[in-house]
């Protein structure tokens, strides 16, 4: 059986499979939306406060994940660290702006539900990262 010729890749680390970090975001949204719908049956204010808190956690985290895994491989370690610092600053600023917008513009708001949504998404993010670390690399 003839083998396929290997494709030459010039970008360092381009042949290392990118870990499926986007799945964490998808799981977060898949948990958040039904949870909000469920809470909406009891209290509408709590439901949208929960959604707002969850989105304040999910969107900056997705931005950070996209930046942190833009480059791969040992030869790109410095670029990875630089991208991660930029991603971290962006995540911090996006979170601050998100919280400010939620608390300044959404009325009435349930502060406890906002933080509950934020913490729930944070727990899923930590569990998802731990799952990424434990899974066997496929690429």
């Amino acid at each position: 059986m003839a083998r396929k010729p290997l494709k030459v890749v010039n970008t360092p680390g381009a042949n290392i499979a990118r870990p499926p970090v986007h799945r964490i975001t998808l799981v977060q949204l898949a948990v958040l939306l039904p949870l909000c719908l469920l809470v909406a049956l009891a209290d509408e204010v709590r439901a949208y406060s929960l959604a707002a808190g969850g989105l304040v956690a999910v969107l900056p985290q997705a931005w950070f994940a996209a930046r942190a895994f833009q480059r791969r491989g040992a030869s790109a370690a410095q670029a990875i660290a630089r991208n991660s610092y930029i991603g971290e600053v962006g995540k911090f600023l996006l979170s601050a702006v998100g919280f400010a917008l939620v608390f300044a513009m959404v009325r009435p708001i349930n502060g406890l539900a906002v933080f509950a949504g934020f913490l729930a998404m944070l727990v899923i993010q930590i569990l998802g990262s731990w799952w990424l670390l434990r899974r066997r690399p496929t690429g």
Partner: protein
Amino acid sequence: MELVIIAAAIMMGLGGLGAAIGVGLLGGKLIEGSARQPELAPKLQTTFFLGAGLVDAIPIIGVGIAMYLIFVVAPGVGA
């Protein structure tokens, strides 16, 4: 009421400082680890991702509480 604003500023400032030190240390160790054992670089990158998520969680919650103090507890002072 101005004390609420000062408390929020200290909360955000010290939280950001802690996160900056933590992520700086993590990034340094990532470069060091990748240089020592290049074959472990992808795993180190994922460990960095997990670590960074843990390190910045508390400061971001601090920022959230600070924003709550500014815009909900003392809205007249912040405006």
